[in-house]
């Protein structure tokens, strides 16, 4: 299956040009959020799990903030989007 990862959090700026921050990722069926995070971490060379655990970055999945500590084992479905953002606002 394929899912989309949008790496909008600013920590990714240092490692990826903005044109390459939306990724289509091929995964085995029933892959978990944790698995995607590991794959992405390997790809971009950033410990994304640490960013999620320290809440410097959050994932929006199905229009809500995923509670990573409790939902890392959530199984993804074909075509889902994970948006990685900083839980910060502008005004």
């Amino acid at each position, binding site marked *: 299956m394929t899912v989309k990862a949008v790496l909008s959090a600013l920590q990714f700026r240092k490692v990826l040009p903005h044109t390459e921050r939306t990724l289509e990722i091929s995964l085995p069926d029933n892959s978990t959020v944790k698995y995607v995070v590991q794959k992405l971490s390997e790809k971009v060379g950033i410990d994304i799990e640490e960013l999620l655990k320290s809440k410097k970055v959050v994932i929006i999945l199905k229009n809500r903030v995923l509670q990573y500590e409790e939902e890392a084992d959530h199984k993804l479905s074909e075509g889902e989007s994970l948006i990685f953002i900083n*839980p910060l606002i502008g005004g």
Partner: protein
Amino acid sequence: MKELYSQCLEKINANPGKELWHTYGTLMYTTQGYELGDTPAKYFQEGVFPAFKISGEALIENYEVENEGCALCSVICGHRVRGVKMEYESIGSLGSTLGIYDLDYILDLTHICNEMGMDSISAGVSLGFAMYLSEKGVLKDGVQWGNGKRAIEVLRSVAFREGLGDLIAEGTLRMAQRLGIDPEEAACVKGLEIPMHDPRAFSMQALCYATGIRGACHMRSDYFTVDIAAAPIPEIGVVPTDRFEESEEKVKMTVNHQNAKEVLNSGVICMLGIFDINDLCAFYSAITGKEVRPQDIVALGEKSFMLKRMLNLKLGMSKEHEKLPQVILRPLKRGGTGGFVPNIQKTLKIYYSIRGISEDGYPTQDKLSQIGIEDLVR
């Protein structure tokens, strides 16, 4: 107070956002807002646009930025370029709302607003309305999407009330009235232009606009900050959930949030979410000598909110004003809102019930008695 200040300074320094706000300014939100469909474009009619070009990253890559902060704050999130203070709201209202993605033009447009004393949100959205009407052929000698040079010329004319600027200076609602077109085309609530948080991106932000004391204000309350986990208030049960949810539980959270933000705003406290409701309680107690808890803040805010609502009603507001215009209720085919449109009629009904507001828009006598302002409104 000195002890509290030291504690707050420690809190600021430990905030994970400090470095990002300092480096990118509030423009750091532009690309994130874009992904969620929160940052509007072309007068709220487009969901896909080159957001990166007007982002905090683009600003620091292409300009010499001077940081500027509030007194005693160590975040120093303000960004000045060529002397012009650049903020997320101005980038959206004078940039993407107009289809302008050239920061040079946005800098000049922002400078005009600052120098001429015009609010960049109202000015930008009204100029965007003129572009929208020009595209539809309503305005003959109008202004086109993305034409920065013409936008500068027209914005100056707004300040001097000349030509087309004289019309735009009226704001979107009166523009529609003067032109004899449907006021549902005016992107405003209670006459105040909708800011740079699209109500189709967060169901409860939509409700906050509809019920806002001064109309479509993104400060009272800024509920979208809850659903991206930027500034939830778990102490009063306000936590992130599905951003499109429209349940009774969610509306309850919104009412609590609005109430808490009444007090936070009165305190002239930073809205970036660095300080939480416990800090507010601590300062409130230190200043007044009266111990307060988070629930007391909600109760204080409710009183403030209802007093203002009563004033609005006295000055002519009615429940008919509590809605969003149709121009903002059309689903966007592309972009981060995923085609969502808030059901304001549904959430407003729940909201009135929770707030103790009758169907005619007036608070019930029971509610006024409960919050202790029944004498004031007689």
